[in-house]
């Protein structure tokens, strides 16, 4: 049984102009001890996924249908009080901007101790000890727990966030753009820290990002999201060596490579569709250079194309994006 199983999840936001279909029928899994990446452009629904799993949607957000099975239990059906016990203790989160995510007028120690004691039966002194150990684990000076968030630099604040996320010994950590906004060196350090911690504590991580390089470096499996749907889902090596969905392929190709000589950056023309009235058929069809008539009319089915490899594209079997494959160049 998978640790986390998302099954045909639909999450819409109610707005004045209609329903925004942020997540429209998404399915994927996270197994114990693996790092799964969720990648896509801004506004494709990845953050919504994160908040939905934690059941932290704002009042306008509704889970329309689908299941979120964590350790076999459906989180969609849980009451607020039941979720409160699950949050942080079973599933925790690393937020995108630590400066905003941490309370500026409370010390880190206070916030971590609160997090620990909300779920684990410990005295205050024991909780403080644990907080210090967590600080050491993330590479920070344990004496600094008494300080305030604004006294830490950007990269160190992310470490603080990671320490916070581990406070109640969770099984699954959802990392929402954990390295966005950091310089590359710090980024690489944070990622390495996350990988080390994952191995040490046998954590499962769901890593949300728009940066494919981060995915390549850190994840075991990856799901590519576009306009509220998953277009391709496979292990990392397969995705980067022979993707099947045009969007996935174009994303990978859009990144500059040190090796390619003077090659023009390939961009994907156009922009993602609005999610209130997405285009009929395959949502990517307006921007897809490989689109055929069927793509504009019929939504592609989400099918299994290989071992642990799923794609949603009418042309999945015909396109060959592997190295030396026939479908290159657009």
């Amino acid at each position, binding site marked *: 049984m998978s640790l986390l199983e998302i099954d045909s999840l639909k999450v819409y936001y109610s707005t004045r102009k209609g329903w925004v279909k942020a997540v429209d029928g998404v399915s994927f899994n996270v197994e114990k001890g693996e790092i799964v990446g969720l990648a896509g452009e801004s506004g494709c629904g990845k953050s919504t996924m994160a908040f939905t799993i*934690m059941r*932290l949607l704002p009042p306008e957000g509704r889970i329309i249908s689908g299941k979120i099975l964590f350790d076999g239990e459906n989180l969609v059906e849980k009451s607020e009080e039941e979720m*409160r*016990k*699950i*949050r*942080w*203790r079973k599933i*925790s*989160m690393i*937020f995108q*901007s630590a400066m*905003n*995510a*941490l*309370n*500026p*007028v*409370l*010390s880190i120690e206070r916030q971590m101790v*609160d*997090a620990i004691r*909300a*779920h684990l039966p410990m005295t205050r002194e024991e909780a403080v000890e644990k907080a210090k150990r967590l600080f050491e684990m993330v590479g920070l000076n344990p004496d600094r727990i008494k300080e*305030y968030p*604004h*006294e830490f630099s950007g990269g160190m604040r992310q470490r603080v966030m990671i320490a*916070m996320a581990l*406070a*109640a010994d969770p099984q699954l950590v959802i990392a929402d753009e954990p390295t966005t906004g950091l310089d590359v060196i710090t980024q690489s350090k944070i990622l390495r820290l996350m990988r080390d911690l994952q191995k040490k504590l046998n954590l499962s991580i769901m890593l949300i990002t728009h940066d494919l390089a981060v995915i390549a470096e850190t994840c075991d499996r990856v799901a590519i999201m576009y306009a509220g749907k998953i277009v391709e889902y496979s292990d990392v090596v397969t995705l980067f060596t022979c993707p099947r969905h045009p969007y996935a392929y174009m994303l990978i190709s859009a990144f500059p490579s040190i090796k390619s000589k003077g090659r023009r950056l390939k961009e994907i023309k156009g922009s993602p569709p609005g999610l209130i009235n997405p285009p009929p058929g395959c949502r990517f069809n307006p921007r897809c250079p490989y689109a055929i008539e069927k793509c504009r009319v019929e939504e592609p089915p989400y099918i299994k194309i290989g071992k642990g490899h799923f794609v949603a594209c009418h042309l999945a079997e015909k396109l060959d994006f592997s190295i030396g494959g026939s479908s290159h160049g657009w």
Partner: protein
Amino acid sequence: MGLRDFVMRRAVESIILLVLATTLNFFMFRLMPGDPFAMFIENPNFKPETKKMLIARFGLDKPLWEQFLIYFRNMFMGYYGISFRYLQPVSEIIFSVRLVNTVVLMVSSTILSVILGVIFGVISAWRRGSKIDVGSLVTSLVLYSMPVFWLGLIIILVFAYYLGVIPFGGTITRGLRHANIFHYIVDYLWHLAPPMFTLTLINLGSYLLIVRNTMLDVLTQDYMVTARAVGLDKKTILFSYAMRNAMLPLVTIVALNLAFVMSGAVMTETVFSWYGMGRLIYSSVMERDYPVLEATFWFISVMVILANFISDIIYAYLDPRIRY
């Protein structure tokens, strides 16, 4: 920036404000149509010696810039001339029971307004859109739109004229011999209640609205989402995580509101004949007692500037972002 630097900076700013306020005061009263002399000494009740003494103390026969400097010295040394009406040194009139009465009125009503404002402001924000929220909002808006003096008049009409449960005004019952100090205090408090209550109601609205807005702002911050994500219980979230942030600006707001409370006090004291500085402003205008008017106004300005300075220091002490 550090606490010490902050205090230094605010101290310098306050001094500048004090200088500006005194300057404004000086020129404002010299604007009076007619003779600047009239401001201080043209009073038929003054004896010639008194007039001579005043001319000397204020340097009224010297050039303007010299008068300005002398004025500064006099103001800060507490010498304000002689009252036209009472024929006493103005300082005796101001630094008397009047000052105490006004401070008591302002402090007590501010404390009550803040407490009620915080309670209802927080409840309103926490339960946004509920009946309590809407009720609080409407009440605050109506109170804000109400003239202070009218509220006072109506309170007197209803509770003094029709119900007879409060006095018509004053600080103590005139002519009453009090048995002991306790009796005196009770009488005083009984007289304090209506004006205090009036002033509280008038300012309540603005505190409630500000607390509500600050709370709403805080509740939409990312760290509140984190607090929920961490699985903290509602009580902790509300009191330790939300209110701690929302209460900080309150210190500044109380300071900013001091001007309004003072204005309200002027009206309230007038309507309830409360023997304080506010009423003094009104009566000195009516009686054309310019020395008293000028001095009272100056003193009120200084009080407010200092109070702002102190509250800024308190705020800096409480907000860890400034402390370190």
